[in-house]
C-alpha cells in the first residue's frame, strides 16, 4: 500500500513533466537549494542560458512570494522571530516549454486586490509590462505589499505567454491561490 500510494503520486507528477514539487513549510534555505537544483537540471538538459535565467527568476519570485505572503503560517516563531509560511511549488517541462507553478493560501479579504492586480498584468503586452515595471520601481512600495507587485510583474515579464492564475475558496477565511507561468 505504501509503495503503491507513493508510486502513483510520483507517476502522476512525472506524467505532467514535473522536475520537482515541494509542498509544505518554505524557507530561504529551501529556496536556495531548489533554485540551485533547477539551474543544474536545466544545464544537464542543455537548456540555453537565457531560458535557465528566466525560469530561475520566475522560480525565485514565486517562492519569495510564498515566504512573504502565504496566509498559511506555522504556529510559533523561529528563533529570529520570523514566521514560517507554507505553500507548494512545482517546476517542470511540458512539450518543450518550462513551467513554474506556485500555490498558497491567501486571506479572502485580500482576494479582490490580488485578482485585480493579476488581471491587469494579464492584459498588458511586453512593452506595457516593461513600462509598468519601471513605473513601479520608481514608486515607494505599497505599505502592505512589501514589494510584491514588482515580483509579479517580473514573473509576467519573464513568462512566454500571459500568466495563468486561479483561486479555490477553502472556507470563510481562506482561498487557495495558484499562479502558473510558462517560460
Amino acid at each position, binding site marked *: 500500500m505504501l509503495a503503491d500510494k507513493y508510486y502513483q503520486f510520483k507517476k502522476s507528477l512525472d506524467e505532467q513533466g514535473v522536475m520537482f514539487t515541494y509542498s509544505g513549510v518554505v524557507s*530561504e534555505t529551501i529556496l*536556495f537549494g531548489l533554485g*540551485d537544483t533547477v539551474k543544474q537540471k536545466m544545464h544537464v538538459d542543455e537548456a540555453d*542560458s*537565457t531560458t535557465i*535565467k*528566466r525560469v*530561475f*527568476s520566475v522560480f*525565485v*519570485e514565486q517562492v*519569495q512570494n510564498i515566504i512573504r505572503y502565504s496566509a498559511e503560517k506555522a504556529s510559533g516563531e523561529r528563533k529570529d522571530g520570523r514566521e514560517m509560511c507554507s505553500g507548494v511549488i512545482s517546476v517542470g517541462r511540458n512539450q518543450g516549454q518550462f513551467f513554474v507553478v506556485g500555490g498558497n493560501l491567501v486571506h479572502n479579504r485580500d482576494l479582490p486586490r490580488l485578482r485585480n492586480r493579476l488581471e491587469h498584468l494579464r492584459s498588458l503586452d511586453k512593452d506595457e509590462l*516593461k513600462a509598468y515595471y*519601471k513605473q513601479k*520601481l*520608481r514608486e515607494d*512600495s505599497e505599505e502592505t505589499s512589501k*514589494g510584491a507587485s*514588482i*515580483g509579479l*510583474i*517580473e514573473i509576467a515579464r519573464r513568462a512566454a505567454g500571459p500568466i495563468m492564475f486561479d483561486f479555490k475558496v477553502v472556507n470563510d477565511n481562506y482561498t487557495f491561490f495558484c499562479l502558473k507561468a510558462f517560460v
Partner: protein
Amino acid sequence: MDCFTRHGTERTPEIVFDFGRGIFSIRGESYPEDVATFYGPVMSSLKEFLSGNRTRSLTLEIELIYFNSSSAKVLMNLFLLLENAAGAENQITVNWYYQGDDETMREFGEEFSEDVRHINFHVLERNGAPPPQ
C-alpha cells in the same frame, strides 16, 4: 573608513566601496534573504560619501549575474540617489557590465540607463571575468 567591503556569497554580491578613489563596485548574484538588512549599510555609506562637501567624482561598476525584484528596487533607489547628486560638481559614472550572451542583464542595464539623465551611464559587454583591479 577608507573602504567598505562585503565579500560575495552564493546569493549576495561582492561589494567594494573605495572612498579614496571614488570607485564603488557590486559584483555577483543578488537575492538576499532580506534586502533591507543587506543593502541598508551600503546605502548609508554611499549617502555619507555623497554628503561630503568637496568636489568629487564617483564611478559605480556593476556586474551582476542575477538579481531579484527586491534587489532591482534597491538598484533603482541607488541610481536615483546618484542622479540627484550628479551635476556640475559631481561627475558620476555608472558602468553596467553584462556577459555577451546575457540579454536579460543587457536589457536591465539599458532600462536603467533610460531613467537617468545626469549620470554617465554606460552599458558594456564583457566576455569572461573582469580584469584584476
